[in-house]
């Protein structure tokens, strides 16, 4: 018989702590015999529960065709002796009895004997079984019951009852299944967010802790959730997400999100949708869940995608950067798709690559379809994502190139930007009726990649709408820039100079703008991620 190993003993006693599990995994790898000892011991432990439950319930031991060891009188005398020795030695310690004693076992001044204690132990245990600590007889019994239930339900002769498999496999545990409502994430930001009423919790506010079991329905805007393990999830309305009982997972019922997992603890971040399980391995990806299925687009790194309804590991696929897959509703396969609609990709990338903002400005990855005066008025400075990976085949006229501070005339002079591949962002400032002009807005925008040019004149803006703007957006000026309203930063006056400053590393844009009687718009071009 092998010597006991403390880690194996701790495992069998259910006492392995975090480090213990790590050590135990390593110990199992050391020697195939360790694995064998573990498997045998674990099998015995499982069977012990079954056998004891059956015997305590008065059931007969399982009958098989094989003659049992007991029937053959194979209980080794040495083993019996050993068991009796253990029985005797285990009661060497003084024992205090609590509660009613069974008949014939009144308190004895000389102290209880081993047999008394054994009898009392069995009595106490029977009381426990019949009163307060009834535990289901065992995993096998439970599973057998489920299995028989499934067999009955799927029996074609039984009835036309709904498919039980789908309902059983549907593991969307209701919130009430979460035993302890512990914090698993934090709402770290919200942009123009409107939420469905969430009874019992109120409207979530940035900085608020989010507990397991909570479901958030975002009607409008963008919200950023950070899990306790550091995964950042940006959710775009309309969407419904549910925090589940994990510090590194959530469920997307419907809508879009982008997952950003850039820290080691967040690796393994899981997004579950009704159609697909997405497991991140330290990357960026977008998920869109709607009627008909779930799309996945990977921006960086790799993720695992598996159909939520499949039980075959072969159905799991690795999805690499630049690839998109779909699992159609109730499908059991992950299907690759050549492309996802550009707007979907643009939105996901925009969210994933959201610039860092400070000051009087807000970011919205989804650009409104009509930015003309009267159609979209916020009275605030806004930054919108426009296009990504735009190939400029010829020179494009911009107004600002390179580091420095630019104002007045410098913002109107066209400068040829040599052909390159860029992403475009739109800066937009309008005036609410009654706000008047001359209101100053100061902000900085930090981009992930260098700024290659800024378009600030009305004329240059109008000339680049077709190439760098979105085709279905009405920007507020005609192609010749003579719509009657200015749309560049050309309302500058000596009293309220508008300035644009590009930092030396060309990643930070500092804006100093003032409201006028028109719209102030500028277009920022940054190096595309796909640039060489």
């Amino acid at each position, binding site marked *: *018989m092998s010597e006991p190993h403390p880690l194996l003993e701790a495992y069998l006693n259910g006492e392995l702590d975090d480090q213990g599990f790590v050590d135990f995994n390593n110990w199992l790898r050391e020697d195939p015999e360790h694995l064998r000892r573990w498997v045998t*011991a674990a099998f015995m*432990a499982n069977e012990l529960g079954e056998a004891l439950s059956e015997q305590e319930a008065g059931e007969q031991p399982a009958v098989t065709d094989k003659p049992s060891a007991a029937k053959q009188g194979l209980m080794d005398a040495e083993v019996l002796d050993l068991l009796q020795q253990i029985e005797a030695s285990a009661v060497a310690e003084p024992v205090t009895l609590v509660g009613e004693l069974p008949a014939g076992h009144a308190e004895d001044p000389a102290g209880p004997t081993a047999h008394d204690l*054994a009898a009392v132990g069995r009595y106490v245990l029977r009381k426990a079984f019949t009163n307060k600590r009834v535990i289901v007889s065992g995993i096998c019994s439970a599973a057998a019951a489920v299995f028989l239930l499934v067999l009955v339900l799927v*029996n074609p002769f039984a009835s036309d009852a709904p498919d039980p498999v789908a309902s059983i496999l549907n593991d969307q545990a209701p919130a009430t299944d979460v035993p302890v409502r512990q914090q698993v994430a934090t709402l770290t930001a919200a942009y123009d967010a409107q939420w469905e009423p969430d009874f019992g919790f109120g409207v979530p506010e940035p900085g608020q802790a989010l507990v397991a079991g909570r479901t958030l329905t975002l009607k409008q805007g963008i919200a950023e959730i950070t899990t306790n393990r550091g995964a950042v999830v940006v959710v775009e309305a309309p969407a419904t997400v549910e925090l589940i009982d994990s510090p590194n997972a959530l469920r997307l019922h419907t809508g879009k999100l982008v997952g950003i997992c850039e820290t080691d603890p967040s690796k393994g971040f899981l997004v579950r949708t009704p159609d697909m399980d997405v497991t991140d391995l330290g990357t960026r990806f977008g998920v869109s869940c709607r009627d008909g299925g779930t799309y996945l687009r990977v921006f960086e790194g790799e993720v695992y995608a598996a159909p939520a309804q499949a039980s075959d590991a072969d159905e799991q696929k690795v999805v690499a950067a630049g690839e998109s897959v779909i699992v159609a509703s109730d499908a059991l396969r992950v299907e690759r798709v050549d492309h996802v609609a550009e707007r979907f990709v643009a939105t996901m990338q925009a969210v994933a690559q959201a610039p860092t903002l400070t000051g009087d400005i807000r970011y919205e990855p989804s650009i409104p379809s009509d930015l003309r005066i009267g159609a979209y008025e916020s009275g605030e400075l806004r930054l919108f994502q426009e296009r990504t990976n735009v190939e400029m085949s010829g020179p494009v006229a911009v107004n600002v190139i390179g580091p420095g501070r630019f104002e007045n005339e410098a913002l109107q002079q066209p400068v040829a930007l040599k052909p390159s591949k860029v992403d475009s962002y739109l800066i937009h400032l309008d005036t609410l009726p009654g706000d008047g002009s001359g209101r100053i807005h100061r902000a900085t925008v930090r981009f992930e990649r260098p700024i290659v040019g800024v378009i600030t004149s009305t004329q240059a803006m109008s000339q680049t709408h077709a190439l760098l703007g979105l085709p279905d957006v009405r920007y507020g000026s005609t192609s010749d820039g003579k719509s009657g309203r200015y749309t560049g930063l050309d309302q500058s006056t000596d009293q309220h100079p508008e300035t644009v400053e590009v930092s030396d590393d060309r990643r930070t844009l500092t804006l100093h703008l003032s409201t006028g009687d028109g719209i102030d718009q500028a277009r920022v071009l940054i190096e595309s991620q796909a640039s060489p």
Partner: protein
Amino acid sequence: MNRPTQEQSEQLAALWTQAQPVVSAYIRTLLPDFHQAEEVLQRVAVTLVRKFEGYDLQRPFVPWAIGFARFEVLRYRRDHATDRHQFDSDIVEQAAELYQSEEIDFSGFREALRSCVAKLEGRNRQALILRYTQDVGPKEIAQEMTMSANAVRQLLHRVRAALRKCIEAAIAKTGGRP
């Protein structure tokens, strides 16, 4: 999903009766928590029903079933990736291979164990019942049995060792090997 025919249902029920203890043990080996293991076992059972149409009756059933159990354990592990009380995926795989092999005579082991357990009495039996039917740890057992936790650990170890010896002896006499 095509629902199993009456004949298939009966075949599956018979095969599952034999395989279930091994599948259950495999899952509990990797997911010691009773409720976790129960959840996964239920998933496996349902999956087997769904997949039974593709099962080749000429092939052994237990390895086939363990294959699905392996996937469900990995899936559960992935869903609870932040739970540090998890076995690494390579261990899950190796355990599956061992359970799928015929290296260990689980059937003989199971039979012998029941005979040996039937002989247990007193505190030995009480401690095992608390540990293995109520999922109680040594500290709680110690309170229940008014012993020290270390004494409970020693007791559990010695009873398990004795049972193991009993089982090995029983199997050896029937020509098997645990």
